């Protein structure tokens, strides 16, 4: 990853309070994500990792600060956030697949409705994506017939069908049975290797070390340290990073 790549997401002094401003979850974050970059966010629970991620596509409305996507300030008033969200995929800890739709419809609903892609074309694309994650024979099934790992692969494919510029992963393997974690991580790794801009909140330290271009260590609502996986995992400078890693590694 070179520094010359275009900046895709930029956040400026991002703050988020909950509970009538009694709880300060994000205390001022300034950060840039560049095109093609794979960024892992690690840190203790309650440090604001997920909130930070969810502020990037405005699932959480920041209390103050700005978020820019492709140079446009999406935190500005009167902006059509839906249009920008179409280019920012998200994968959730609890999958959030649509239980009342078939696997195929889960994938095609947003492209057909929001991008006006013809149904046949959307389905063809969806089948192609399902093949890539080994779910093509499940196309006509409802999600209740899928295992957790399969649901998460479906959720990834659903996000990819919108052809996003970036995918945000919010602890994508935390709700999975251990034997299913690898399948999902493999899919994410393939995606990251293919050049997709990826931001991932994870507790899988081995994975973060292996796939990331950059690792952000968050603590108490700020990015306490950031650097290459080697810098963070081998030579952490911040004592809080050292302490955290000593507990999880």
């Amino acid at each position, binding site marked *: 990853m070179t520094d010359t790549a275009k900046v895709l997401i930029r956040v400026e002094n991002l703050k988020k309070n909950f509970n009538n401003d009694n709880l300060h979850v994000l205390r001022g974050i300034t950060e840039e994500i560049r095109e093609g970059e794979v960024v892992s966010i690690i840190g203790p629970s309650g440090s604001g990792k997920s909130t930070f991620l969810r502020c990037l*596509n405005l*699932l959480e409305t920041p209390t103050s600060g700005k978020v820019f996507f492709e140079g446009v300030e999406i935190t500005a008033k009167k902006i059509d956030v*839906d*249009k*920008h*969200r*179409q*280019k*920012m*995929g*998200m994968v*959730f800890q*609890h999958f*959030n*697949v*649509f*239980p*009342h739709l078939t696997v195929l419809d889960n994938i095609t*609903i*947003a492209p057909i*409705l*929001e991008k006006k892609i013809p149904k046949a074309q959307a389905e063809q694309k969806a089948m192609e994506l399902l093949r890539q994650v080994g779910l093509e024979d499940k196309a006509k099934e*409802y999600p*209740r017939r899928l295992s957790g790992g399969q649901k998460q692969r479906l*959720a990834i494919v*659903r*996000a990819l069908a*919108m052809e996003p510029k970036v995918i*945000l992963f919010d602890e994508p393997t935390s709700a999975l049975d251990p034997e299913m974690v690898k399948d999902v991580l493999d899919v994410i790794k393939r995606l990251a290797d293919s050049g997709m801009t990826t931001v991932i909140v994870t507790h899988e330290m081995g994975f973060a070390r292996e796939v990331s271009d950059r690792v952000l260590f968050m603590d108490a609502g700020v990015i306490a340290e950031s650097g290459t996986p080697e810098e963070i995992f081998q030579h952490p400078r911040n004592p809080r990073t050292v302490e955290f890693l000593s507990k999880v590694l």
Partner: protein
Amino acid sequence: MLELIQDVVKIWAKYSDVFLNGLWGTVWISLVTVILGTVLGTLIALLKLTNVKILTWIVDIYIEIIRGTPALLQIYFFWLGVPKLLPMLELSNTQWIVVALIVNASAYIAEVIRAGIQAVDKGQTEAAKSLGMSNFHTMQRIVFPQAIRNILPALCNEFIVMIKQTSLASIFFVGELTTAFKTVQSATFLVIPPLLISGVIYLVLNWGLSQGIKVLERRMRESD
């Protein structure tokens, strides 16, 4: 006992058209109330879910007033009060009474629908929004189809309450089943036989409705 059965048969033979007209009255008033009450109730529920303070505030007051006052008083209000306040609206007595029933139903239905929508996992909305789906499509294609499962059983109870509530219209002699009872009762001076006939027709109507909804619920479970 034998005498009673004979009276029922006799009255049915002579006045069946009165009861059938009454049944028709109850059915159309119920249908209009149910359909328009559900439409209005859904709109009110959606207003409440906008989380715009002033809107939720108005909706709360509307619901509290309607749930906190008797339906009969509301009918009087629309029948006698509103035509005085808004003389340019020229509706018949029957139409005003139906409007009152619709308004009454809308408050109860709004609460049922709001609760049903809020019971859908928040992650579903977030997933739809993260795909860039509009608020309208998110509600129409993702949240509402799942909320129906929560809403339908409670809505069925509301429908049955509403069908029975149409009997209040008989106070104003709007031709429905309870009016039919009163008509036959005053023509024959018999109480129990016409009461039985009207009662059985209500019972069959509501039993049929609850059975129909049960079938629908079962089918939804199977497709789930």
